């Protein structure tokens, strides 16, 4: 069985770009949580999460975004989310995450958003 969840992080100057692939559910969310925690502990709080290859998310995945965002914004950072497929975006929207997070079309737009609006109020 192929790995249901793959995460790759690349650094672009002071931005971390985390590309997540597969599905983010209660089984795989702890892997994402661990990597996000490591970024914050390393002082990297300007994070783009590229979801263009994410096929599914449940509340366990959304919970990871939810639990870290305040700490990240307290450090003047942010999580910008890019490339959501319509099905995945719908789950973000049902719970009102589009009011809390910047959802961008692609990584380029997310990087640009960091230039225009590095952080936002929780």
């Amino acid at each position, binding site marked *: 069985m192929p790995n249901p969840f793959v995460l790759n992080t690349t650094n672009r100057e002071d931005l971390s770009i985390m590309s997540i692939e597969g599905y983010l559910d*209660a089984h795989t969310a702890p892997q994402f949580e661990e990597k996000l925690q490591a970024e914050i502990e390393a002082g990297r709080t300007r994070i783009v999460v590229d979801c263009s290859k994410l096929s599914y998310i449940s509340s366990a995945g959304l919970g990871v975004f939810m*639990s*870290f965002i305040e700490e990240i914004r307290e450090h003047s950072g942010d999580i910008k989310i890019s490339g959501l497929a319509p099905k995945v975006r719908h789950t973000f929207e049902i719970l009102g995450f589009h009011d809390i997070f910047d959802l961008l079309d692609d990584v380029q737009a997310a990087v640009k958003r960091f230039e225009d609006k590095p952080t936002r109020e*929780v």
Partner: protein
Amino acid sequence: MAMIERKFSLHVPSSTENLALIREYVTTIGASAGLSDSDVAKLELAVDEACANVIEHAYGHDLTKEVTVRAIFDEDTLSIIVEDTGRGFDPNSVKQEELQELIAKHKSGGLGLRLIQTLMDEVHYEIIPGQKNELHMKKHIRKS
């Protein structure tokens, strides 16, 4: 003429690893029942949330326990029953906190029940203390 009911049942060990299998099972049944793609996606998420709650909270990740997902559909309605024999809870006693409150408390949970109630047309619990807990969810099949 009486409507034909189709019944399915899936029993899996209580592990989050099996959530993908459960999702595959319910999406296949949802499509067979005639739900739209959008409703199949809602069903998939609602059942995932219900089973994740059972695995994590009712059974506390005890792999020796079993999660049962029963599905029954006719021409009008698809019913899903998620059954466990673990720690039951009164869903009405669970405080539904707003997203802003959850964020302020750095919480990662607290969204599942709200999602289930939003995604399904009917939701109710049947809890027999010390015996079993059942979450009943229904999706009406809209004729195109």
